[in-house]
């Protein structure tokens, strides 16, 4: 019984962890770009980047399948040049979950960047900071709590990912069958005991993540910074 729960749980944690890392890097980069640079089509790009949050995961999964499939533009290129196939692999599940989780990091990071008084960045420049130093010494430390809270929500979202992951990676037990997919399979097979255990584990993890994210967001740091 323990293995039944542990295998999909560990896989879910692995997939969600990597997906969060990808979403974090991409989300922070795009958030910084859109918060600081004015360019034509900025709000259209913003809508496009937010789309995975509102689009049905199956639709997103379908797009990814078309893109990453052996005959897709990205999948075909990867297959030809590196011999990499992402469909029905846990790496494919990571990419699906990263897309779904991305808007949560992106939105939180953009709000955090826009919240920063631009005079603080100017102060850095007038003190001789390079742009890189301004970003790592001023901007990022001040936005860090908002970004971290977004990353935790992204992790929780990635952990619960079902639709897009199923489309891209399928449900191969021990390989791509994540916790939420395992729950579905267990219910479909009439295995109520397993379903029960998995559901409780998933619920507890989500509650823990939310509590920690809440702590981070309203933590003492944020209040101490305001004056």
């Amino acid at each position, binding site marked *: 019984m323990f293995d039944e729960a542990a295998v999909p749980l560990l896989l879910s944690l692995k997939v969600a962890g990597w997906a969060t890392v990808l979403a974090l890097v991409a989300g922070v980069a795009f958030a910084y770009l859109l918060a600081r640079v004015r360019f034509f089509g900025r709000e259209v790009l913003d809508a496009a980047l937010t789309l995975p949050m509102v689009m049905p995961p199956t639709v997103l999964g379908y797009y990814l399948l078309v893109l990453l499939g052996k005959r897709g533009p990205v999948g075909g290129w990867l297959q030809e040049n590196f011999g990499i196939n992402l469909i029905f692999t846990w790496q494919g599940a990571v990419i699906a979950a990263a897309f779904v989780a991305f808007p949560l990091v992106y939105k939180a990071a953009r709000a955090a960047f826009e919240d920063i*008084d631009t*005079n*603080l960045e*100017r*102060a*850095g*420049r*007038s*003190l*001789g*900071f*390079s742009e890189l130093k301004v970003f790592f*010494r*001023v901007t990022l*430390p*001040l936005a860090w709590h908002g970004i971290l809270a977004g990353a935790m929500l992204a992790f929780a979202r990635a952990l619960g990912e079902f639709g897009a992951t199923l489309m891209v990676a399928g449900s191969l037990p021990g390989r791509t069958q994540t916790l939420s997919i395992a729950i579905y399979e267990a219910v479909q097979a009439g295995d109520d005991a397993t379903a029960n255990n998995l559901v409780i584990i998933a619920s507890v993890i989500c509650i823990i993540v939310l509590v920690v994210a809440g702590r981070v967001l309203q933590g003492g740091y944020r209040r*101490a*910074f*305001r*004056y």
Partner: protein
Amino acid sequence: MQLELRIIKDLHARGRHFRLDVDMRTDSDAVVIYGPSGAGKSLTLQCLAGFVAPDAGRISIDGATLFEAAQRISVPARERGVGYVFQDYALFPHLTVAGNIGAALQQGWLRRLDDAARARVEDMLRLFELQDLRDSYPSQLSGGQRQRTALARALATRPRLLLLDEPFAALDPALRERMRYEFVELRERFKLPMVLITHDPADLQSLARELVVIEEGRVVRHEMAPFQAEVPQGATALRVIAGGAGTRAA
């Protein structure tokens, strides 16, 4: 210090248009740019510091060109050697007083301070009487302490020119008078040229050797101390200064 400033900058916001068209030249070490809010004082200072690029014009300090639209020269803010004290001081809220002062002196990814830099931070702390507050964060400081920290931070890098945006506006009146006095002392000690902007006429008498009045984006008056009583336009404030010590204390 020789400062040459010719700035044209058009701003559009929500259908409204503002044009800054400033042309001034000065040899003074204590220039005060005076005018009502919205006149373009801050924008002028931001162009001088390199935060905002003018549309046209030329900026030079002691013959060194910082901006020249015709030749597409625009020295980035970090290389201008111009210190800037913001109206709200813009202290880094996540760094202590000592951290703020030393921030510009740190080198490399390890954020090391070499011996000279550490001595410099100590000098600044002592000079501005901030030793006891070295480990305090900006949120824990009073208005006057924040201002001293901002000055110490700007001076730690040994700028060739110090710009001050309404340096006393955020202080209460009693403290304002004291800080003006300290300020003049400081200027004499450092022999540091300053350009200060204000809309408070009381700042002029004590701080300015040269006065530039800006209204609606243009220089309407430019003169050396002592300032004249007769002022053609927008000049109620100048009449107040010329009125002498009695009104100044008010």
